[in-house]
């Protein structure tokens, strides 16, 4: 690969301007200025030159290439956030082929050397391209994961309806991961607000199967262990039928058709304690009089 090193060392400026022209013509700039692009390609060429001077036969995964790899990862990360498409990212390195091959053709002595040099350069540039793509995909995946997490947290708001009454309007499908978050936030909120009644509203849950029901029952049981009553509300007619058809046992759980019904019951329950106590006090003093 000696010729490639020679090109990178002696014809760097020439190669750079040729490559930059291709880059700007081929791809969308997506808000990046030509100067930034030129700067990035210049850095890449310099790192590549340094690496090849260190180890003439270095492939992408060689230790000498570590700075090149890091640089490509950084560029891919930045472009992934700027909304570049995968092919645009790939074009960043693959577009280096034409200007490099042109120069190899001029310098090579005979067909044998040319094909060997071109093959070596292709292998290297392909490796760099794949590495960039991998980095791009990784950073996209991270982005998706982060958004998933955000959604998970956003979709489980626990609201206080009254003193001692919490409501948890569930929207979307309930899976294990989500149930875990729901359970944790609800229990935490019960502790914080010292609420005795929690209403889980499933109006926004599209389907209830045995698994979802099991998740709901777990949450209800955990709340009960902490000393809070749970009411499940917002059960649509179809869902009520599904629950019966599936034979899901909900006898231990208080259920209501609507959130309003559940709220009424919750109010009764929290007031009941005070009212019952009052009633008893009255009966007790009455008993004394007799």
């Amino acid at each position, binding site marked *: 690969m000696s010729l490639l090193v020679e090109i990178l060392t002696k014809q760097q400026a020439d190669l750079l301007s040729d490559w930059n022209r291709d880059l700007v013509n081929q791809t969308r700039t997506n808000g990046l200025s030509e100067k930034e692009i030129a700067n990035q390609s210049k850095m890449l060429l310099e790192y590549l030159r340094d690496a090849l001077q260190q180890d003439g036969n270095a492939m992408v995964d060689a230790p000498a290439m570590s700075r090149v790899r890091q640089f490509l990862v950084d560029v891919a990360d930045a472009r992934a956030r700027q909304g570049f498409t995968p092919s645009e990212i790939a074009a960043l390195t693959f577009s280096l082929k034409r200007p490099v091959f042109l120069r190899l053709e001029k310098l090579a002595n005979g067909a044998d050397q040319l094909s060997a040099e071109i093959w070596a350069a292709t292998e290297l540039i392909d490796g760099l391209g794949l590495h960039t793509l991998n980095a791009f995909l990784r950073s996209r995946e991270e982005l998706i994961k982060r958004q998933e997490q955000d959604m998970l947290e956003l979709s489980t708001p626990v609201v206080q309806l009254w003193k001692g009454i919490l409501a948890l309007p569930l929207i979307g499908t309930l899976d294990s991961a989500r149930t875990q978050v729901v359970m944790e936030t609800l229990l935490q909120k019960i*502790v914080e607000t010292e609420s005795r009644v929690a209403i889980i509203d499933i109006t926004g849950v599209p389907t209830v199967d045995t698994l979802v029901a099991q998740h709901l029952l777990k949450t209800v049981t955990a709340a009960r*262990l902490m*000393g809070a009553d749970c009411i499940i509300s917002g059960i649509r007619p179809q869902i009520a039928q599904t629950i019966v058809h599936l034979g899901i046992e909900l006898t231990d759980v208080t259920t209501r058709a609507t959130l309003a019904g559940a709220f009424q019951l919750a109010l009764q329950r929290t007031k009941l304690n005070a009212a*019952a106590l009052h009633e*008893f006090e009255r009966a007790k003093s009455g*008993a004394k009089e007799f």
Partner: protein
Amino acid sequence: MERIPILRMGSYLLVTVQVDMHDQLAQQLQEDLAVKIVQTGARGVLLDISALELVDSFIGRMIGNIAATARVLDVATVVVGMRPAVAITLVELGMSLPGVQTALNVELGMELLRDRLEETVFNDHFPE
């Protein structure tokens, strides 16, 4: 030997678990409590586990056993202040502690005990 203290407060017994319960300690507590209930003629037991951070199936079963023992001796038991993490662990272990009364904190637990006790007193005075 290390023991969990059982305090008497009127006609109630107050047990506050301040350390991490290990198996021996839980077993000891169960025995001590049964003896104490009979000795004092207590009408209610309040088990405060708000400082308990770690539970396993054994401790979970012990809590259930303590409540069951108390029930046999006609004493109401309320478990108070269970932490969310502990509650989740117990549920994941499949232990829903049926028959154990729970309350959010000591205050509400006491209220519950008092209600229960007064109810029984009330029923004694006014049989249906």
